[in-house]
Each structure stands twice: as C-alpha cells, then as structure tokens.
C-alpha cells in the first residue's frame, strides 16, 4: 500500500490528552438529521471509555459543501461560526472522516487565520481519537455479522486514517471480516459531485456496490456516513443487493456491549 501523500497532522504539540479532559462532539449536519443513531453511538463509546462528552449546541456544519463547490466566501462564514462554537474546546471529535478532513486540512485554505487553522487542527476523527489518543483498540463490542469495510477517500488520503479503523474492527467479537475488492477506490459520492455529475457518480457507485456484493458481506461499515448514504441508496435500488446493510463504525463498535 502506498502511504498517503501528505496527511495533515492533528494538533498534538500541546499537553497530551489527560484523563478527564472533556471532548466536544461535532456531529455533522446530515448525521444529526438523518443518522442520529451514529451520534448517539459516538457519545456512548466515548463516555464508556471515561471521556466526559459535551455537545456545543450552536454547531451546524463544517462548510465543506460550499468549499468543494468553489464558494469559499460562503464557506468562510460557516467556518467562522464553527470556530466561534468550538473555539474554547481543546479536544473535538467527529464521527466523520470527511468533515474532519475539512476542518483539519481545508480550513486554512479558506482562511489562513491562526485561530481558524488552530481550531481545525484540534478536530479528530472518532476511530483516530479512540486508538491514537485514548489507546483503545477493543471497545468490547460484539457484532456477529459478515462485514466489509469502506474507508472514505478523505479519511484515507487527506487524514491518512486507515489503521485505527482496522485495529478496532479486528477486536470486535463475532465479526467475520470480508475483504472488499479494490477497497481503495472511490465510491463516487464526492459531495455535490454526486448530483453535479450524477451519471459518473452512479457509475462509480455501481462498481462499489458490485464489489461489496462480491465480498460476500451482509454489512458495509465505514467511518464515513456520507459515502454510506450514497452506497446505501444504490444498494436499496438493486433487488440483489437490498439485503446488504450499511453501518457507521461507531454503531458497530457500540454494538452488543454489556
């Protein structure tokens, strides 16, 4: 495997995580509204490992849709709101690799202001935070299903977060891991790409769905709900693939814990 080109490092130059340090949850807009279970599983996971969790209620979006569409001026307004909301928090954790990448890698493109870049670099993707900051590799979960893994491209290439997800899945009891053919390839979601170039996006998604079917898995798990929304939409359209469920990794890591 080729190592990611230049993942942007999270901010770890400060005092390391101390037991009892509170964590601010960043629950991206589409998870908040359409997949609240993912947010709940994330909160439970962190709490169970002794992390006090807070949810800054002013939060909205990371600004990525406008940023990727070229509307950086509009994205800047939303990013400033993000920074006002999270500015006082040292540790920010999000169950979305893509939104984390927006904060950590791209905030500086929109506004190179030190405060904005600083807040962005304090955002961690959930599995990364569990493994690399808390040192947790076994969440005590049981998930007796044939499962395959799709890691979103922003998580893989912008953040370089691949190992934490694999480590955590390895220790889930009962889980049968199914290798996904061409797992490094994009699923075709790409945010507004999915509706701007819908034909191409669907062609890519179809290939991903066929590979998932070929893996023999009953469940696709991912640290990125946005990819899953697109993949699930395609699976549900196809009678032969309808039985395959999509789950965010937080839901799997939280499953069946006594």
């Amino acid at each position, binding site marked *: 495997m080729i190592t990611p080109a230049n993942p942007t490092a999270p901010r770890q130059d400060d005092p390391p995580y101390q037991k009892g340090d509170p964590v601010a949850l960043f629950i991206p807009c589409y998870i908040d509204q359409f997949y609240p279970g993912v947010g709940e599983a994330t909160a439970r996971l962190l709490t169970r490992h*002794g992390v006090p969790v807070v949810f800054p209620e002013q939060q909205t979006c990371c600004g990525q849709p406008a940023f990727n569409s*070229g509307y950086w001026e*509009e994205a800047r307004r939303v990013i400033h709101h993000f920074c006002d909301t999270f500015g006082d928090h040292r540790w920010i954790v999000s169950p979305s690799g893509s939104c984390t990448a927006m904060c950590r890698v791209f905030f500086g493109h929109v506004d190179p202001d030190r405060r904005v870049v600083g807040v962005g670099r304090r955002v961690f993707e959930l599995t990364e935070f569990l493994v690399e900051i808390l040192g947790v590799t076994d969440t005590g979960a049981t998930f007796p299903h044939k499962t395959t893994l799709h890691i979103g491209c922003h998580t893989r290439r912008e953040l370089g977060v691949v190992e934490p997800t694999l480590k955590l899945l390895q220790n889930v009891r009962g889980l049968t891991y199914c290798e996904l053919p061409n797992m490094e*390839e994009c699923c075709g979601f790409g945010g507004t790409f999915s509706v701007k*170039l*819908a034909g*191409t996006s669907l062609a890519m998604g179809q*290939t991903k769905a066929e590979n998932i079917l070929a893996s023999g898995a009953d469940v696709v798990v991912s640290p990125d709900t946005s990819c899953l929304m697109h993949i699930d*939409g*395609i699976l549900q359209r196809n009678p032969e693939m309808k039985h395959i469920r999509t789950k965010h990794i937080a839901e799997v890591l939280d499953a069946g814990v006594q």
Partner: protein
Amino acid sequence: MSSHDLHLEGAPFLKEQNAGLYEPAGSKSLGEATERSSKQNRAIAAEIPSWQDWRESARQIKQFAIANLDKLLVQFEERISARGATVLWAENAEQANRLVLDIAREHHVKTVVKGKSMVSEEMELNHTFEAAGIRAVETDLGEYIVQLAHQRPTHIVTPALHLSAEDVGKIFAERLGEPFSADHQHLTNVARRHLREEYLKADMGMSGVNFAVADTGTLVVVENEGNGGLSTSTPPIHVALMGIEKVLPSIYYLPVFLNLLGRSGTGQKLTTYTHLIHGATPGKKLYVIILDNGRTNVLADPATHAALHCIRCGACLNACPVYRRVGGWAYGWVYPGPIGSIVTPGLVGLKSAGKLPFASSLCGACQEVCPIKIDIPHQLVHLRHRAVNEPSPMNSLSERLTWKAWAWAMSGSKRYRLAMAAVRLGVRMAKFLPWHPGKLGAWTRGRELPRVPGPAFRKSWSRHRSQLDSHDRSDRT
C-alpha cells in the same frame, strides 16, 4: 502575455459541453486497461523503498526548475545552440505552427514523420500540415492508429487505449487495405512494414521532448518502439517541440526522473529507448521550438504552479475513477484526466474550460500516484473557487444566491434547525412527487433517499445525556 488562448485551434472541442463527463461513455478496453496499469503502477512503487524519497526529490527539482525558468531556458538555448541547433521561441500555438511551416517550406518538405508529442496535439499541427499540402505521418503505434481512424488520442501516453485489437484490425483493413486480423504481433508487423517506408521517404522528422537539460544543453526523448529514434535521426531535419516547463537544471538529476517516468507511465523500470540529443548531427539540421501557449498563465497563479511540474506520465489518468469511466475525449481537449482538469483551464482559460475542475470526486487517487507529488485535488478545489468567481460557465448568480442562503442558514443554530426541518420535510414528501426536479432528481435517478428518522441527534441530546451518565457510572463499578 497576450490572450492568445483564443487562437488555439483545439479549444473549440470544449464547446461540445464535455457530454461524456455527465453520462460516461468510456470504452470497456479503456476501463480495464487503466485499472490494470494503475495496479501495476502501485505494485512497482511499493517494491521500491526509496520511492517516496524519489518523489520528494523530483518535486523539489521541478519546483526549482519552474522558479528559475527564465535562467534555465536561456542556458539550455545557449548550450544546445553552441552545438549547431537552432532554438526558436513561440508564444502561442499559432506562432509555433508558423515556425514549423516556415522550416518545412525552406527545406521543401513533402513528408514528415512524427514521434509522439503532446505539444503537437496542442498545436493541432497535423491540421496545419494538411492545409499546407504536407503529408504528416504519426509513427508512435497508438498515434498512428488514432491518426488512421481520424480520431484524437484518448490518453496522453497510450493514445489508442480505447481500442481493442479487433478495432485496430478493422481500422488497418479499412485504411491500409490489409486483411483483417486481431493478432497483436500481426498488427504490429503491419504497422512496422508501412512505417518503415515512411521513415525512408521523409524529408523531416519531428519529436516531442521529455526533458530539456539546461547545464549540458541536452534534449531527452524516451520511447518504446524505436520510432522516436528513427523519426529524429533518419530524415535530414529534426524539429523538436517542447513546452517551457520541460527544462531540468542539470543532467545530474535526470536519473530520478527516468526512474519515475518509466515506472509511472508504463510500469517499466526504464523505457526501451532513452535518447540524449546533444546537438545537431553533422550535415543535418536540428530545430528546437520552445512553446509557452498559456503555460505562463499557470505560472501567474501561485496555487497552480505545481501543475507545471507534470512530466506527462499518465499515472493520474490510470488511477482516476472518473477518467476510467468517461475516457479522454470527455475532457474536450488534449490533456484529459485529473492533470488535464488543471492544465487545460490554465492553457485555454477558465472561460472555456471552467467546468473541468468539477469533473472529480476529489478522491485523491491521482495525487497518491503522481511521481512528482502534485497536489492535484487541492488545485482542483482552488480552480473551482476561481471558476465560480471569474468569467466561466460555472459562474452563476442563482447558484451564488443559493450558497449565500445556505451560508446564512448554517451560521446560526436556530436558522439551521429551521432549514433542516424543511429538508426533512422535503425528503419525506419526495416519494409522493411524480417527478424529482434538479439536484433531487439527480440523486434519486439511481439512488434511494435516506429514510427520515425520529428526532435529530441534538433534539434528544439532553435525554441521552442523562442516560449516558448513568451508563457511564454502571460501567465503572
């Protein structure tokens, strides 16, 4: 520099609206071949422990070269001119075409054999030759096939990637009057037989340039078929075409690039032939035409400088899931794929190519394989930003207003809740609509919408919060 992109004969291709980007129509051969190449590419790179170091060296060398173009190009000109070459400069494709034509007329050229050159494609040189009554024959096998079929290359390294052996057999039967065959060796023999005669007849040979080495005044041309060597050395005149970005400071750095180019381009340790041309062969003529053609526009934008580091290996095309499905023609001009989506807007302007930076899911596979570590996805979002703010097909007032409304809704939690309630209602109601307009229709064309769940996460947060605390306490005991 003047706005010479309007003179580009190639640019009108972009007016075909890049249809294939929206509804993929790439060939099966192309999809399979690119996937195979890309896997091979990665496997080869993974075998070499110093691969990442090579990439970083190459990036730094190119960065230096591009930052010192003014000095290095002049040095190159001085050194190669001292050994009998004539160096000519062209600001745009029109000038370059005129220079080539002047040379051809001066020497009464009737037939030209051409080694592979993307700059020649950029100039639409074959059209110029045709209009002047000069016969030009492409000698790279892929280019030869594409020329016979009256098509344009679909890939910058492997121009006929979209064609199967059967397709080639049919083209040879139709255009050359050869009996049909789909046997690779047989087809190669046919091409070789026809091309050999051309080399002997030709009055002038042409080539592209992979690297122009400043300190020694050397042209480097790499190839696999021997056609490059024959095109540059058999006829009495050799005309080499190069973009200004091809210059390397020193021959000392060449091995890094040869190592990266062969492996990234075709999965070879080294190309079969590497020609180092230090000047004109006694008794023969050597011309080098150095072309800008919009490259200085790329240089003018600091965020896209690195696009000029490209060594045209094609690795990003092979790795790109969009390119694999839409093929090269969908990008509307000479340079397709991820790098093309940066280079084309630079060379012909965002006004005609402003859509290209949007033809990407920003997955980053291109950057991962790029031997020079060009930050392609980041440059694409940068160009998107420019495309919506500068004159371009993506600059739209209605979309601007939509995003302004979005930004207003997303910068306050009350407004956010209201907007989200509307989205939830919309998604709920969508299944009752007889048809789905615009972006909604684009989504539901091949995808189900997500089911709308109970209360949003934030709504039930306070309730869950107390549960979480009790859960937490019970865990600790």
